[in-house]
């Protein structure tokens, strides 16, 4: 079977800094990683490949340096990597991104074998939209199952998949037909460490690199900034509250400080004391 995992190279958000004066992102020296949510989808694809046979292709759209993330995915165990890169893609919002990725997925299906499951990350850590997966599913007419906590069965013979999907207040057990688009929930599996031979293979592997034209995109006005219905008008830092926090002075002991803090809380919001007494007594 053919599994394709869409990944995104993202800045390691723990290390993003904002320039205090210009309010721009200081990108220099910020390391990039594979979007952590994508790794659970990659792992699920690798597991099912190992179980039922087939191939795992990883796909990303991004600048040429995104090849690093693809190579990392190969060291974890993917069989093939495709990089979709073109200046026409710059400034894509989620709609333009799903357009470009759908074209690449179609081309992957035509070139390397019909796709059974497209796996996407639940969301990215830089954009947090969770919109690209559903966009791909709609464009390619794939059955869409998001927030999957477990894939119970992939049946290539009758072309079905059985899985558990997180929903409000419980889990839906669903059965659907392939091809499907699945996003995995974090913690739904344990991401493997690659084997030595995968690392050696990855180091030598050719990454398939496609431009918009290579991916069969004729209308580049549907890509990038021009193909994006959303427009970012303003980027800004939030304004601090007019008043800074009222600081409670430290007492001689932590106990004195604690009592002073409680007094300050009750003085600021007298009603909270009654609420707390009720809550603390379990009502």
């Amino acid at each position, binding site marked *: 079977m053919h599994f394709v995992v869409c990944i995104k190279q993202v800045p390691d958000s723990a290390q993003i800094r904002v320039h205090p004066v210009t309010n721009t992102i200081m990108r220099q020296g910020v390391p990039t990683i594979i979007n952590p949510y994508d790794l659970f989808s990659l792992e699920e694809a690798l597991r099912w490949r190992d179980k039922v046979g087939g191939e795992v292709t990883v796909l990303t759209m991004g600048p040429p340096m995104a090849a690093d993330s693809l190579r990392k995915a190969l060291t974890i165990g993917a069989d093939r990597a495709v990089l979709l890169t073109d200046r026409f893609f710059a400034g894509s919002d989620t709609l333009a991104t799903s357009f470009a990725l759908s074209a690449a997925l179609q081309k992957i299906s035509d070139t390397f074998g019909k796709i059974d499951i497209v796996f996407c990350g639940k969301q990215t850590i830089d954009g947090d939209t969770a*919109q690209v997966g559903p966009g791909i599913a709609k464009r390619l007419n794939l059955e869409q199952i998001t927030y999957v906590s477990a894939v119970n069965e992939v049946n290539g013979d009758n072309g079905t998949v059985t899985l558990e999907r997180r929903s409000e207040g419980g889990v839906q057990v669903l059965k659907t037909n392939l091809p499907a688009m699945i996003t995995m929930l974090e913690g739904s599996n344990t991401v493997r460490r690659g084997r030595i031979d995968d690392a050696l293979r990855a180091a030598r592997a050719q990454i398939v690199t496609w431009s918009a034209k290579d991916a069969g995109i004729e209308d580049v006005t549907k890509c990038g900034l021009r193909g994006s219905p959303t427009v970012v008008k303003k980027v800004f830092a939030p304004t601090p509250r007019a008043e800074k*926090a009222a600081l409670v002075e430290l007492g001689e002991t932590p106990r004195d400080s604690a009592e002073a803090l409680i007094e300050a809380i009750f003085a600021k919001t007298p009603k909270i004391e009654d609420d707390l007494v009720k809550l603390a007594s379990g009502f």
Partner: protein
Amino acid sequence: MSDAKPAAPAAAGGRASMKKELPERFRNHKHVWVFVEMERGVVHPVSFELLGEGRKLADKLGVELAGVVLGAPGPDMLHACQEAFAYGADLCYTVENPVLADYRNEPYSKALTAVVEAHKPEILLLGATTLGRDLAGSVATTLLTGLTADCTELNVDDDKSLAATRPTFGGSLLCTIYTLNFRPQMATARPRAMPMPERQEGRQGRIVPFAIDLREQDIITKILSFIPDRDSSKSNLAFADVVVAGGMGLQGPENFQLVKNLASVLGAEYGCSRPLVQKGWVPSDRQIGQTGKTIRPKLYIAAGISGAIQHRVGCEGADLIVAINTDKNAPIYDFAHIGIVTDAVRFLPALTEAFRKRLSPHSKDRLAG
């Protein structure tokens, strides 16, 4: 993924000038809509929060506010409409069909898309829940329109377009996003990101049924069963009145127990900042912030949390924010109301003990009061 765009303010002016006349085919799009999310007969509270915001937008635009309710035929539908009216809707579009009894992407996105295409709203808001996010992405792609996720502020500009503000770059900045040349303008907001509006008992509205041909045999995905969560595993963090949370200032996973102890004495829910989840100290359903839960408690105590924007957007709806942090320059003091500059690890046990005494029904303070 709008974040893929460069952030330089200089470029923003250039983009804003992309504004053209709204294409002719979108000019008859009018009114503000909220998707009223109902599962197993219960309307998700995020829908009421969105109706509250939608009401403000509709009033500014001088248009009507409509709810859209999808579900199986039965009394739940009428009930959901009445709830929507009580929270500000003027009318509700309803699609009743047995196929819509439980959420599945295909019939829900078909139904919602069909109502939108028929009645043409200018703004469509959905909750950023697992259901809402699954649905919104499909509908926006079918309609080929813009969708802004996880908004923390919604407003209408002078030229009547929707200004949707959300955190960006992993929550280190905010950005305002427009869908200038397409309709409807779609946005989602996370539960508790917007305040709960006042409920107006007995407020009335119109119900407009919408018919669409959906048959079970045409729907590919089948629901085999539903496994409800055990009560014990449910956290009520988003809706708790009092929340205590810890951050990296706790220094080690073993010290998170100090947060739990204080929460227990206060009858509060406990939470944490993102790094603690990333380090595996605390399960992800306890994370407060842009990628975790948004909270609106009466009292929020943040211990050893620096207050990065991505955390701030998840907690600044709290009535009273109390910060405990060793760094007096930490950003949390920019939005906390009360602070104490001290080491949370040493201070929390003393605070827990002081609260225990103070709140005990046998406390001398209380008897005297």
